[in-house]
């Protein structure tokens, strides 16, 4: 063992055991790599690579509307889309039906005054004027990439998600 401190001691005990020292050394290497992987996984989760963090948070906006949503979601874990908009004659939000089929809408706050289906899109209409602040709570029911769009009074915002299992 002289000059090599990384290798473990080799012994020849008077015992009826098979130590598999080479395999044990591979096992220790696996443990060390595994601990680094766990660390990387936790850091990625902390910054939001698996949802609920600044890496995941996405914002789309124009002059009249601001849409905030999470890009990375987890299967059946509740997430939210927040829409802030200015309008003088009510507000209409619409999603493609195909997009909504991949989510379960848990609630919309405040509740829409009217819901209708038109040209393969689901429309939610809100009465009122000036400032609107609407939050849609939903749960993903699909895995992998999901693309969709949200129309806010006709202005289109593209939404992309990746849903983890």
């Amino acid at each position: 063992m002289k000059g090599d401190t990384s290798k473990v001691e080799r012994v020849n005990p008077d015992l009826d055991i098979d130590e598999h020292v080479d395999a044990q050394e591979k096992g220790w290497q696996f443990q060390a790599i595994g601990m680094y992987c766990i660390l990387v996984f936790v850091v990625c989760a902390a910054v939001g690579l698996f949802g609920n963090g600044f890496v995941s948070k996405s914002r789309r906006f124009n002059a009249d509307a601001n849409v905030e949503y999470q890009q990375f979601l987890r299967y059946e874990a509740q997430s939210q889309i927040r829409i802030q908009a200015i309008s003088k004659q009510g507000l209409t939000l619409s999603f493609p039906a195909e997009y909504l089929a991949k989510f379960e809408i848990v609630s919309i706050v405040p509740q829409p005054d009217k819901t209708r289906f038109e040209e393969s899109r689901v429309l939610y209409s809100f009465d009122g004027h000036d400032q609107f602040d609407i939050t849609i709570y939903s749960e993903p029911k699909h895995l992998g990439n999901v693309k969709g769009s949200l129309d806010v009074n006709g202005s289109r915002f593209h939404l992309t998600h990746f849903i983890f299992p």
Partner: protein
Amino acid sequence: MNPVLRGLVVYLFVFIIFRILGKRSLSEITTFDFVLLLIISETTTNALIGDDFSLTACFIMVCTLIGVDYLFSVIKEKVSWFQVASEGAPLVIVDSGKPLKKRMEKSKVDVEDVMEAARLTQGLQHMHEIKYAVLERDGSISIVPMSKK
């Protein structure tokens, strides 16, 4: 997700995590470790069953976990390298009264652990009274005392 697939994925994940932690991780459970284990099992349960509380889902999950565990035990019996890879092998950590430092360091065992095992199992007081100390596959330390002349 299909409950069988869910059970299989969770089993493999827990299996790999505990392999990474090493054999000493569960051999000596402190009160905190015990509480941590309860939290882990509770978290795992949620991922296993989701919001399906039916008896059928429960039966599927129990059968899947027991089935995979049985399959693993059969493979371990038939394929020796798989047993070594999954559970490790016994390792001598004290040879003729001399602690094998590198082996102990890699296995996360210290002299205190060895002396504790020596006191508890053999009533030994000193390191030079130990002929061999072996870290077993389950993480326990077995002591072979020096033969009395």
